[in-house]
């Protein structure tokens, strides 16, 4: 007998830990699920830390599951068979859907207390029926190949499922305000961006390019990365700023060893200005302590000094590169990130950047520049794209 999965069960992540804000969090998660599944026909119901998706076209089950895997705020997902809580039907269906060979266990949860047997009694009975029908399968409570979960709910329905697919975890995008990520196109910044999305922040991105020194390929790479990030962040707004004049002026007027530090100070200033204009409440970078010359504590301190009101979040600050790469692979950004195009940080790379820039010397050398007009002209080149 062929039995079709007719329900997808979604378990909430840490939302259930929330107190008074819980409703708002659940509502956001529901909206995000609806946004993800906007191309599908289905119905969705919420009940006790869970959502149930039904009435979908079964041929799209795997596509829907793939979409749901990228929704933050979901702990896990299961494909279920939903039936009315009639014990005879449950027993016979359980013995039909169990594979004919291998080892199994049955786990019963009985929220519906009107059923007169205990969970253990039910599991025994179901196990017995399965063995009766499939003589080649064995019970193994420890090392089983299949775990049949039988979830008898209070709403009069029972849900049968085998697997629990991990969801995105974290919090639903949109519950933790908005931020602006500095997106270079390297390995770290896309991961940092998605990590903040995972904590519920809706992230916009800013990319600095050095046209005509950098080309269309480098920019296209950032656009392609935005398309991947967009899956997790539920859309993303990309601010593109031409940084060439600033770099050239720094190159001409400042000591070469401070080039990177001063560049990064400009990037922070512009990011803060754009954030404030767009109601974004923090800046996100993919920096990791000690990874490159500019990511020393002195480097980070001297870039943060230029900010007047926003904080900088650095989710990767204590990450090893290998850990970041693991996440980049998980989030599918790695293959794009390693495309070897020149970007604004590699075009004007000094041979000996200062590893421990002295803040006073950096500030002194910036006196040679007209900060305001350089920033203004850079911001005039701003182009906004949405993915």
């Amino acid at each position, binding site marked *: 007998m062929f039995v079709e999965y007719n329900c997808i069960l979604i378990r909430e992540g840490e939302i259930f830990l929330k107190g008074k804000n819980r409703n708002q969090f659940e509502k956001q998660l529901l909206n995000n699920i609806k946004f993800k599944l906007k191309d599908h026909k289905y119905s969705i119901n919420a009940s006790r830390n869970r959502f149930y998706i039904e009435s979908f076209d079964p041929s799209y089950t795997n596509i829907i599951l793939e979409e749901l895997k990228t929704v933050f705020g979901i702990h896990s997902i299961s494909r279920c068979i939903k039936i009315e809580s009639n014990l005879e039907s449950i027993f016979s269906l359980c013995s039909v859907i169990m594979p004919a060979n291998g080892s199994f266990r049955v786990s019963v949860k009985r929220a519906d207390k009107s059923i007169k047997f205990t969970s253990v009694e039910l599991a025994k009975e179901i196990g017995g029926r399965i063995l009766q029908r499939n003589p080649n399968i064995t019970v193994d409570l420890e090392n089983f190949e299949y775990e049949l979960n039988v979830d008898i709910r209070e709403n009069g329905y029972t849900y049968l499922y085998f697997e629990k697919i991990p969801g995105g975890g974290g919090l639903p995008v949109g519950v933790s305000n908005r931020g602006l990520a500095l997106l270079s196109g390297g390995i770290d910044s896309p991961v940092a961006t998605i990590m903040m999305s995972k904590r519920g922040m809706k992230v916009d991105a800013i990319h600095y390019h050095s046209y005509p020194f950098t*080309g269309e390929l480098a920019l296209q790479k950032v656009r392609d990365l935005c398309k991947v990030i967009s899956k997790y962040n539920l859309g993303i707004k990309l601010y593109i700023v031409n940084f060439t004049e600033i770099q050239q002026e720094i*190159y001409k007027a400042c000591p070469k060893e401070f080039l990177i530090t001063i560049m990064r100070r400009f990037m922070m200033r512009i990011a803060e200005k754009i954030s404030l204009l767009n109601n974004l409440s923090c800046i996100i970078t993919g920096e990791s302590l000690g990874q490159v010359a500019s990511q020393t504590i002195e480097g980070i301190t001297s870039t943060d000094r230029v900010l007047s009101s926003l904080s900088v979040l650095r989710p990767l600050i204590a990450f090893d590169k290998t850990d970041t790469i693991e996440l980049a692979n998980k989030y599918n950004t790695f293959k794009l990130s390693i495309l070897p195009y020149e970007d604004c940080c590699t075009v004007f790379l000094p041979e000996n950047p200062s590893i421990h820039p002295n803040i006073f010397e950096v500030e002194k050398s910036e006196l040679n520049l007209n900060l305001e007009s350089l920033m203004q002209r850079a911001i005039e080149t701003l182009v906004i794209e949405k993915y």
Partner: protein
Amino acid sequence: MIYLDNAATTKCSEETVSIVNSFLSTRFFNPSAQYKQSVLIRSEIDNSRNNILKSLSGKGRIIFTSGGTESDSIALNNTKKKQGSKIIISSNEHSAIYYSALELRNRGFKLEICPTDNHGKLNLVEFENLLDESVSLISIMHVNNETGAVNDLKKIVTLARSKAPLALVHSDGVQAVGKIPVNLSDLDIELYSLSAHKIGGMKGSGALFIKEGIEITPFLFGGGQEYGLRSSTENVAGIVSFARAIESRVIDIKSNYKKITSLFNILYNYLVNNEYFKVISDEIFGSKYILLFTNKLIKGEILQNLLESKGIIVGTGSACSSNNKTTRITNALKLSKTDSEGVIRVSFSIDNTENEIYEMISALDGIIREYKLLCL
């Protein structure tokens, strides 16, 4: 726009566009059908086959393919070879050959990669040393797509005949046909790959020459087209325009080469008289259609971007280390790290003019001047 990346692809000639147009609109019939229109189209395909053989003095068969890569792949994969036998390629073959050869190695063949000189031309002494009776296939490109180096195919075939009598010899002629003289009978080569879009034809159209008596195993099964080797309804527009492109390029080969040589010389003379540039291509024995050079100031990719911003399109090619996931070509040409970073490939077509080259030179001058002011 000044387009100087013609080794990557060329603009379709007006004649190609007009032929393609006619075969897509009014003469669209399936060549395998029975009505008169189809029969006429079938004979157009046969004529195309014969015209290509005639233009290249080949005795054998032409099978039409989707392009150079497919032709190379057939030559390596679908020829009869003794299991475990030796296969020889050169170190700077096109990826189509290189990766097919690696695949053959995975299947148990012994792969030998013969080095080249600094211009990208096969080292014949090393090549000769690799030859013996266990060699079943040799694939050496005719004109190198990075440097324009021209291999002495005749000598290669002669050496192969005397020392590796069981070997089939294949050459990727994608950058040669229609640009330098190719006489397949004189070369006495077994297999030769051709592509349309490097000489004003369409992308998606190519061919493989197979010498009389050489067997190829069929690889696309169906309606029996292309001698039953490659079934599939023919790309008629691509085939007919391709044959015509070869024919007309071969007729004008000398006058075209003269024109291209003058373009090459203008740029070459500028580069060799400028302290920041170094020419990698062989200015005497190489094909004048390709000029590979490097500079010590600006990375190739950045120089390419700066030229593009001035409306000049050039290539960095796979010899440019910053543009490539492997360093295969860089290593093959024995380029130093600095040299490999600054590589630019200029490749000419008969549509280019001397004025365009002078504009390119003045753009290079301007870029170098500005870069020096900024960085030195």
